C-alpha cells in the first residue's frame, strides 16, 4: 500500500497537555523564591519540603496568573477555587501527594485559533486548565549508591493546559504549541522555556479510519524537550500506529518516551503507570469563591494578544501580514516597531530593518531586543540617514552593528568611523576615472553593449572608496564617462 492511499484512509487524532511554570516571585504554597538554577535544595522551607505539621497557603498571584491564562485561552473561569490531593509515592513529591485540582479546574471549555497553511484558522478546543504544584527533581547519575533529590522546584506554581483531541497532525500540534507559547509570553506569566522545563508538553495520539465515530487506542508520549521534538515524536508515533493497524494488529494503550538521540519512542514499563491517585479534596485549603470583580479586573488588565496585535498592525500600519507575523513573535519587538513608527512614517522600511538587519544582529549576539542599548529613535535616525543617501545599505548595516556594540548614536558612529557616503561628485568622478583607466578590457565590453560589465566596474569603484560611495551614482557616472 502506498503512502498516499494510507494517508487518505486514516486520520490522526492528537491532544496535548502542556505544563507551564508560572513566573510568580514566590512558590504556590509557601514564601520560597520561585527561581531556576540555584544550588540544590537551597530554595526550600519546611512547607515545600512537606515537613510534618506544616500547611500550605495559596499564593494569590499564582491564582491571578491562572485566571489570566484562562481568559486568554477563552475559557470559562470557575470562580469556586478548590484543590485536591493527588496521592502517589515517589521521592520527588515530599508530602506523598501533589496538591492539584481534580473535578473543578479553574478553567474549562476554551479554545485557541491556529493558522493553517491556506491562511484559514482552525479552532483548537481547550478542555481544561488547572493549577497545581510542581514536583522536585531526581538526579539519578550523580551519586554512586543512590539517587539525589533537589526540592527547589517543589511547589513551583504550575498550570496544566489540556486540549480537546482536535489536532489532526504533528504540524498542527507544532503550530498550536507555537501560538500557545506566544500567547503565554504575551501574558508574561511564564518564560515558557522548554529547555529549563518551564514549559513541558505531553501528547496523546491515536489514529482512526477517516470518518470513524470513536477514537482509536491512544499512546501517551512524554519526554520531548522542544517543539521540534514534539513534532518528530508525533510523526514517529503516527507512522508506528499506521504500521501496526495496517498489519492487522492492535495498538496497546501505553506511555511512551521520546528518545532524542535515536529519534524513536519507547514504551515505558507498564508497571510504572498503574496508578490510582486516590484524589480527594485537600482539607488543608478551604475552598473559596473568587469575586467576579477580581476576574473582571484581570480581564481588563489582559494585554493585546498576538492574533489581535497581528490584525491591528496590518490594519494600522499597512504592513504585510508576513511582516506583521514576524514582528509579533516577540511583544517587545512589536513595541519597538510601534515606537519606531512615531519617529518615522515609512512603516514598511522600518519592518525591513527590524526583520532584516536588526534580527541578524540580535541573533548573532544571542540577544533579545530588551538587551539592546539602542532606542527606536536611534534606529529610525539610522534608516533616515540611509534614505537620505548619507549612508548606503552596507554602511548602514555597519553603523547599526557599531551602534549596538557601543550604544552610541548614528551621528557619532558616522563621524567616528567616517562612514558617511561620499557624495561629492568630483571625488566620485575621480575614482571612476581611475577605474576606467585601469580596466581597458571591461570598458571595451561596456562599449560593445554588455551592460553587466558595468556592475563589475561599480564594484571596483565601491571597493576603491571603501564602501562609502553610492553604487547607483557610480553607475550613472560610469555610463556618462564611457
Amino acid at each position: 500500500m502506498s503512502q498516499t492511499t494510507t494517508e487518505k484512509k486514516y486520520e490522526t487524532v492528537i491532544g496535548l497537555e502542556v505544563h507551564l511554570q508560572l513566573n510568580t516571585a514566590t512558590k504556590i504554597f509557601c514564601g520560597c523564591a520561585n527561581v531556576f538554577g540555584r544550588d540544590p535544595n537551597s530554595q526550600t522551607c519546611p512547607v515545600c519540603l512537606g515537613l510534618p505539621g506544616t500547611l500550605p497557603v495559596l499564593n494569590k498571584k499564582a491564582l491571578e496568573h491562572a485566571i489570566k491564562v484562562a481568559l486568554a485561552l477563552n475559557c470559562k473561569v470557575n470562580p469556586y477555587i478548590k484543590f485536591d490531593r493527588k496521592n502517589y509515592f515517589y521521592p520527588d513529591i515530599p508530602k506523598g501527594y501533589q496538591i492539584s485540582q481534580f473535578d473543578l479546574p479553574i478553567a474549562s471549555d476554551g479554545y485557541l485559533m491556529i493558522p493553517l497553511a491556506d491562511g484559514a484558522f482552525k479552532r483548537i478546543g481547550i478542555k481544561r486548565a488547572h493549577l497545581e504544584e510542581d514536583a522536585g527533581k531526581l538526579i539519578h547519575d550523580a551519586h554512586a549508591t543512590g539517587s539525589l533529590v533537589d526540592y527547589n522546584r517543589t511547589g513551583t506554581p504550575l498550570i496544566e493546559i489540556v486540549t480537546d483531541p482536535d489536532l489532526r497532525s504533528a504540524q498542527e500540534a507544532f503550530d498550536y504549541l507555537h501560538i500557545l507559547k506566544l500567547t503565554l509570553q504575551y501574558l508574561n506569566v511564564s518564560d515558557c522555556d522548554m529547555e529549563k522545563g518551564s514549559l513541558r508538553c505531553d501528547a496523546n495520539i491515536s489514529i482512526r479510519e477517516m470518518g470513524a465515530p470513536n477514537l482509536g487506542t491512544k499512546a501517551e508520549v512524554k519526554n520531548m524537550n522542544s517543539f521540534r521534538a514534539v513534532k518528530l515524536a508525533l510523526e514517529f508515533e503516527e507512522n508506528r500506529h499506521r504500521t501496526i493497524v495496517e498489519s492487522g494488529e492492535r495498538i496497546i494503550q501505553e506511555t511512551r518516551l521520546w528518545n532524542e538521540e535515536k529519534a524513536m519512542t519507547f514504551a515505558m514499563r507498564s508497571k510504572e503507570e498503574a496508578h490510582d491517585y486516590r484524589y480527594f479534596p485537600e482539607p488543608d485549603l478551604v475552598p473559596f469563591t473568587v469575586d467576579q470583580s477580581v476576574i473582571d479586573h484581570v480581564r481588563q488588565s489582559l494585554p493585546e494578544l498576538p492574533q489581535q496585535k497581528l490584525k491591528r498592525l496590518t490594519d494600522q500600519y499597512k504592513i504585510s501580514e508576513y511582516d506583521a507575523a514576524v514582528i509579533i513573535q516577540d511583544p517587545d519587538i512589536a513595541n519597538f516597531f510601534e515606537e519606531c513608527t512615531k519617529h518615522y512614517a515609512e512603516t514598511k522600511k522600518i519592518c525591513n530593518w527590524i526583520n532584516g538587519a536588526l534580527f541578524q544582529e540580535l541573533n548573532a549576539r544571542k540577544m533579545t531586543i530588551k538587551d539592546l542599548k539602542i532606542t527606536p529613535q536611534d534606529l529610525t535616525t539610522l534608516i533616515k540617514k540611509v534614505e537620505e543617501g548619507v549612508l548606503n545599505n552596507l554602511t548602514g548595516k555597519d553603523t547599526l552593528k557599531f551602534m549596538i556594540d557601543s550604544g552610541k548614536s548614528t551621528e557619532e558612529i558616522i563621524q567616528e568611523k567616517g562612514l558617511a557616503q561620499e557624495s561629492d561628485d568630483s571625488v566620485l568622478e575621480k575614482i571612476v576615472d581611475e577605474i576606467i583607466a585601469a580596466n581597458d578590457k571591461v570598458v571595451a565590453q561596456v562599449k560593445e553593449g554588455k551592460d553587466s560589465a558595468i556592475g563589475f566596474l561599480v564594484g571596483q569603484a565601491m571597493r576603491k572608496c571603501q564602501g562609502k560611495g553610492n553604487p547607483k551614482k557610480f553607475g550613472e557616472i560610469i555610463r556618462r564617462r564611457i
Partner: protein
Amino acid sequence: MKLNELTAHEILDLIKQKKTSSGEVCQAVLDQIERSDENVKAFVRLNDQASATAKEANGPVPIPIAIKDNICITDQEVTCSSRILKNFRPPYDATVIEKLKKSGAVILGHTNMDEFAFGSSTENSCYGPTHNPWKLDCVPGGSSGGSTAAVAANEAIWALGSDTGGSIRQPAAFCGVVGLKPTYGLVSRYGLIAFASSLDQIGPITKDVTDSALLLNIISGTDSRDSTSAPFTVPDYTKALVNEVKNIKIGIPMEYFIEGIDPEVKQLIVNAIEMLEKSGAIFEEVSLPHTEYAVATYYIIATAEASSNLARFDGVEYGLRCHPEKMRKNPLVDMYEETRAVGFGKEVKRRIMLGTYSLSSGYYDDYYLRGLKVRTLIKNDFDKVFENYDAIITPTAPTTAFKIGEKANDPLSMYLSDIYTISANLAGIPAISIPCGFSKDGLPVGLQIMAKPFNEEMLLRIAYSFEQSTDWHKRKVRL
C-alpha cells in the same frame, strides 16, 4: 498544698504577690515528675532547658506546660509516639508553641499519645502505655492520655492536647481534668502533625475551667500560616467565667443515653443536670437523629485523610529509614515498604489501609463521598438544635477508664469509647469535658458540654457555674 498541685491562676496570683516564683513552681513540677512519672509514664521526653527557662521566665504566664508529642517545638525531637519519626527534630515551632513562648511558658517536654493520635487509650505508643494516675492499672484514655495523666498527676500545671474525635475530652474525663476542644479553626494547626486535617484541633487540658479559659486565651487566634484558621476576633475568655446559668437552654440528646452507657456514668450525668437545673438552667430533651452514623462516618473521613497525611513518612527526607536484607522489588519500593512496615504500629497500618480503601477508585463514591454527605447531615442536626438551645450536655464517654490491655484486641469496642465525642469534630463545634464525679471504684467521670461554633464562652460559662457548685475538680491524686 504543694505548688505543683495548684492551678495556673492560683500560681499566677502567688507570683503576683511575690509568694513564689516560676522557678520554684517548675522545680515542684519536676520533682513530681521525678517521683511519679516512673509509674505514670506521662512524658516521653523532657526538655532539659525547662529549669533554666523557668528561672529566666519574664512573660506574663510563666507556667510549666506539658505538650502532646504531635506538636512541633524547634529543635526538639517530636515523634507522635511512632518509631517512624525517630530523631525528627523540626526546625520550627508550632504556632501554639510560638504563642506559649511569648507568654513566658515553661515547656516541660512531650507527652505520650496513641501513635499518630490513633486510639483512645494511649496504649498504641512505641514508648508503651501511659497509666491512669487514679488507678495505675487503668488506661488514661487517649489519644492525649499523656497530657491528661500529667495534669492529673500534678506533673504539669496544664497541658496541650489535640482532639480529632475526642482525644482531649475522653482522656480528660478518664483522668478527672478539664479538656476543651475548640471550634475547628479557632486554634492554628500549623505545627500540629496532622491526623485528619478537617477534624484536628489543639486544645487546653487543665485542672479547672478558669485555667481552660486562660490557656485558650493564649493559644487561639487567626494564623496566616493555616488557611483553615478562622478570621475570628478572639474575645477574652476569662470574661465568660460567670457563675450564672439562669434561663440558659440546654438540650439533652436522647440518642446519647441508650444502651452501652455505664449506669454509674449515667447517674452522675443525671445528677449534674439536676444540679444545673437547680441553678436555673432549662433542660429539654432534643434529637440528633444522625448520631448513629457518627462513628462510621468519622472512621471513613478520618482514616481517608490520615492515609494521605501519613504518606510523607516514607524514609526519604527524615525519620526512620529501613532497607530489607534482600532485594524484593526495587531499592526504592523496598525501602518504602520496609520503612513503613517497621516504623508504623498495628493500629496505624489498620487505619492507613482503611483510608486507602475508601479513597480508591470504585469505592470513593460509596465511602468517602457518602461520608462527607452524612457529615453534613450530622452538622445540620446540631445547627437545628442550636437554633433553640444554647448548649447540649452529654456524658463525655460511655464508661470510666478501662483496664490496660482490656480492649487491645477489640478495636471496634475501642472505637465506641469515642461515641459521644466524635460528632463535635464532624460538626466542627466546640466541646468541653469537666469532672462531674467519681465511680465507686474511684475513677473520674466527665460531663461534656457542646455549643455553637465560636461560642466557647457559653461552654466556659456553663462549665464554670457547674464547677463553682461542685468540688470534683479539687480532688487530688497523691503519687
